[in-house]
């Protein structure tokens, strides 16, 4: 199965290590890179998730914690993980993007909400895999659309 076409891969750019795009050294704390395989949903491979938290559009536009998913694109496709998933071993207490990658390189990451209007609201808010260029942000939107989502780009919370 091809998870990324050549064109998509080119538009998304190179995979980066955690915090690499931010110019920081990799400071993943203990258990921040534990893989949460049972909780991660690979949308590219498994299709749109069925059991999802749907929120009012306002919740998404305010970027509230309620129903917030972490999204991540790597060589295996688009993966999502509910941010309030407990990570009791870590000091943060909940999961972070490297709990999706195991600390490995990835293309892009951010947050998303499934709105009650059937649209997906997403931003690029990830210190580990975020901070894209304008072209890369567009490529992310295009990738989501290629998977069948109607997407809305969020740039700042209301």
């Amino acid at each position, binding site marked *: 199965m091809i998870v990324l076409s050549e064109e998509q891969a080119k538009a998304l750019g190179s995979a980066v290590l955690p915090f690499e795009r*931010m110019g920081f050294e990799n400071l993943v704390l203990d258990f921040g890179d534990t893989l949460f395989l049972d909780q991660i949903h690979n949308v590219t491979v498994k299709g749109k998730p069925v059991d999802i938290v749907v929120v009012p559009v306002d919740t998404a536009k305010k970027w509230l914690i309620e129903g917030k998913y972490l999204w991540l694109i790597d060589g295996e496709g688009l993966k999502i993980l509910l941010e309030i998933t407990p990570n009791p071993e870590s000091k943060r207490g909940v999961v972070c993007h490297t709990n999706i990658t195991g600390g490995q390189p990835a293309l892009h990451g951010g947050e998303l909400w499934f709105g009650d209007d059937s649209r997906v609201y997403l931003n690029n808010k990830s210190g580990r895999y975020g901070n894209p260029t304008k072209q890369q942000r567009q490529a992310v939107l295009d990738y989501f659309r290629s998977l069948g989502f109607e997407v809305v780009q969020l740039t700042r919370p209301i």
Partner: protein
Amino acid sequence: MTTNSVGDVNIVNAGKRLYLSKVNDLTMNRATVEQVLADFESLSQRYESLSDEEKKQVEVKTSERGMLVRVVSKAEPKSSRDSTRLNRGESSRFGKSGLPPDTISNTSFKSQAVKKSGTSINSYKVLLDEELIEFTKGYLETYTQLWWLEALVGSQTVMQHLKLTKRVDDRFVEELIEKYRGLYYLDEPQEFLFSTTSELLESDFGRLSSIKPIEALKRFGLEKMEESKEKVFVKLQ
């Protein structure tokens, strides 16, 4: 478990006689654990039947079976129990980072709080990574929030500095923040704190002005700085 291990119990005068005769009975008859515990229950009940004068002479301290043995004096200082609730109530955005100072698990420092005395909870000693550290409240409400600093400058840097200074206070935090590589940024209305800047961020938020990490610390605190690094930017109001 043996009858001896039940005890971490010190009973004086009347209580001591009561206890020792009970231990002897149990030892002679090779009592089961259940019997020992049941007898301790009855010991507690028999204590109730003592006169006030006799009760004053009894002091019981227990570590393992406090729920079964009546503790008649020297309860845990109230401040210690209150601080547990307080710190949980003051936890961070996910309600997880404000573990109480007397929590002895769930930290990677292999830490163990040392019992406090008195009523002040602003300063206390704590075992972090096998070092006895003097913790003083300030930028950090509890020592368990030290991970904010670790996330910013690295665990190794924090632990090395800890071993040198043997204290965690505002000076400690500021000394480490001085080691932070990079700058923070603010948008013009100062509504958001950014841990980086880029063309795309400036197109979304307008011009961003840099501030030194130490200034960000003094104005917004460590939690906002950490969240900004974790999420690129954080809302300030």
